[in-house]
């Protein structure tokens, strides 16, 4: 499984869940970086302000290839069950001390004993105790409307008309962008964003709640 397929899979589910509702049109967020890294993989989330959303019962997979988590950055709905597969020939440990999900997977090869359910929104930082370089970020959100920026920095989402809170996150985001309300109508719209994406080791940008 790869990044885009995961994204599409999630979108597909959302789409099925939303059948019968009125879709106003496509909202495209165009992100450009004024920093040193590109805007790719920037997480974009639209939190609906007018409706509540039931927790998801979706599944996701995060693989470990060549001593790297793949994908490195993921966005999941709250309640998603993640299977941490291990494609390497060596064994890995997976842990998180993040408040939204603290867990430890003991050293294993192949498939883990049990999937991990991310049941609280927030940012989860994943690491491997025996490989300090292995690092993955998983954003857990309640909203079903989210995406990751493509290589060119754009995220296109079909949103029902209504009001939304827009938030973005990237590990290298220097200045957290204040959340803003977006009114989505029937017509298509494009939201341009310019972000200062410059790595700030060893810290990481705070998660926009």
């Amino acid at each position, binding site marked *: 499984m790869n990044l885009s397929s995961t994204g599409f899979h999630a979108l597909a589910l959302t789409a099925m869940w939303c059948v019968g509702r009125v879709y106003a049109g496509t909202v495209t967020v165009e992100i450009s970086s004024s920093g040193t890294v590109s805007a790719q993989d920037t997480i974009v989330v639209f939190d609906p302000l007018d409706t509540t959303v039931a927790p998801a019962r979706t599944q996701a997979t995060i693989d470990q290839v060549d001593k790297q988590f793949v994908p490195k950055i993921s966005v999941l709905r709250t309640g998603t069950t993640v299977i941490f597969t291990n494609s390497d020939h060596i064994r890995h440990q997976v842990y998180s*001390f993040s408040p939204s999900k603290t867990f430890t997977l003991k050293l294993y090869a192949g498939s883990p004993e049990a999937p991990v359910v991310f049941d609280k929104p927030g940012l989860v*930082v994943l*690491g491997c105790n025996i490989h*300090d370089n292995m690092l993955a970020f998983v954003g857990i959100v309640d909203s079903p409307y989210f995406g990751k920026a493509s290589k060119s920095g754009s995220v296109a989402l079909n949103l029902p008309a209504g009001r939304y809170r827009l938030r973005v996150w990237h590990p290298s985001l220097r200045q957290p962008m204040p959340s803003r309300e977006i009114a989505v109508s029937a017509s298509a719209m494009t939201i341009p964003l310019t972000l200062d994406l410059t790595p700030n080791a*060893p*810290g990481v940008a705070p998660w926009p709640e």
Partner: protein
Amino acid sequence: MFSLRTRIAVTFLVLLAAVLTAALSVVSAANRSNAEREVRRQLSVGSSVFSRLLESDRRQLKTAAKAVADDYAFREAVATGDTDTSSSALENGAARIGAAMAVLSSMEGKVIASYGKHAIASAHLPQARDGDGSIIVDDGRIYQLVTVAVRSPLPVALVTMGFELDAHAAQELADVTGLAVTFSYRAGGDWKAGISTAPAARAADVIAQEIEMSKVGGSEVRATLSRSLADARAPFERLSNVLIGIAIVSVAVAAAAILWLSRGITQPLRELTNAVDKIRGGSYDVSVRVQRRDELGVLAEGLQLMQSAVLSRDRSIRQLAYEDPLTGLMNRTAFVAAVGEGLNCGESALGVAVINLHRFRRINEHLGYSVGDAVLTKIGVGLASVPSVKGAVARLAADQFAAFTRLPENVSLQLWGASLLEALSEPVLVESQPIDLTASVGLAVAGDVRMSADELMVCADLALERARRDKLALAVYDPALKPMSRDQLSLLGELRRAIEQDELRLYFQPKIELGSQRVAGAEVLLRWQHPTRGLLSPASFIPFAEQTGFIRRLTRWTLDRAIAQGAAWFNAGKPLSLAVNISADDVGDARLDSRVATLISRHQLPPSLLTLEVTESGFIEDPNRALRILDALAALGVLLSIDDFGTGYSSLSHLARMPVHEVKIDRSFVTGLESNVEFAAIVRSAIEMGHSLGLKVVAEGIETDTAALKLRSLGCDIVQGYLYAQPMCLADLEKWLQSKARVRVNAQPVNLPVGDIAETATRHIF
């Protein structure tokens, strides 16, 4: 002046010492600069090593701190905000790695937990986190801070740990760099020294380099690396000391070797010098003890050879000087010296015998010289074998021997002389042919009277003369019978030297032709210019010369000078006939004719200008031999005159046979002419007899006009005497002659076959 040995030793030792001193000073100077350069190099390397060590230390400490921070449980405690657990884990980890202090802080710098002197660490947290100011000072102690992040997996907190740079750490740094390490820090405005491994410093002797360790805020720390030059020089100085030791030992060894070597040269040289000194002193039996094969050995051997060569040459010179070459007996010189020695040291009477062989000349003439030599040799052996003689035998002249002995009390001089004659009585066997010889012996003894060897010899000579005259086999010198004053004896000794010292002078008394009153010639007379006694007349020394046989030498000398003078006048165109006296003893000289021939030939004198006046007594002993000699002389062309005519007993028959040209009437008859009638008769008959034999008649000793008139009336041809001229020296004569007319002489040039002797003989040998 120093000895060769000292000079050799001093020269080489000074050279060696100079070379060693130069080498040592060069080494020493090199050492000094090397030491400083070495120290600077060490400092440069050391400071680089020091910085790396510090960095390496920091990294190690960081690694240690990271191990604590990376502990999963600790991370979990920190990540989950479990402060109590985090605190105790921090303390445990810090203690485990020996940190003096530890602080756990949030990423924002908020202290979560701490350990040890955290307060200080907290104060430095910002710098520690930024990497600067990792070295801090507190209360005089210096700490190194390291900060590591606690990851979960992103950094969520920081762990800062401090380690003290204590004496142990300083010592470790010092050990690794090989330099003294001193930490110092700034307190207020001043620098203060902290931990130091340097010994009590001698600032002048230390080279140091400072390294800044920290210069942030209030904690300025630096390390001073230093090295003592003395320490750096120590190994070089040890080496120098060893070199000095080697130099001293080598000088000592060289001194010993040089002394040994030079001793090997100078010791033999000294021995050689001693040997040379002894040889110079006249001892030739020095053994040169240098047994070596080198040059000195060769020199010693050469010296030894030279010594024996000198010895043998000395012997042969002594032989020539003191030995008769024919018989090997002593010669006269040696004999007289031996007699003198005997006289000086002897107590009992010393007897001397002079032995003359009779008619030895005949043996030579009839049997040959080789037989004659053999006879002489055997006689010498015979005399030497007489027990009382004990080898004290000498050969004085051709047929004359001498011997001396110390006479015992009971042995008389005659008895000893008889024993000598006894030894000569046996016929001598030469080539199986027995030859009979007779001899005369003259004896003299030096008893109570002090006598010199010369005087004793003269006495013995006189005794021999008497024996010969009296036809005795043996005669003893008797001072009572024929007294001879010591004065005369010594005079005779001096006469030998008179010829050598050229003290004799020729005097001339002119002869006058009575009829014409012209100068007919001159008689040559002798005067002795004695160094102390003045001018002596012949009467004072000629008789002794005749008695001792020395007259022959006098005659030879006179002939030589007279003939030379005659030749000089002849060559000058003023020929003058000269008359030379020949004694009776001279007539016994068989070689007289050849001597005269040699002389007139050498000086180119016409023989007719020379008249030989032979005394009448010369014919008495052996008239036949005298006749032979006169014939030989006459054959030379010289004129002969019979001197002292009338005193001898020569028979008229002899006179008639003699080849003489004139007779010279003895002065005793002339002086008594006026008073004694008998003398006048003798003179008259002598003149008549002379004229009847065709001879010219000469009268001498004319002192008065009466005598002159008388002689003229008697028909005397030539006169000589004070009335006309007294004897005068050469200069006076030449002056006197200037006013006189001379008898014209018919002088023929010399044309004589004189033979080999004349050609080879020299004046001195003659």
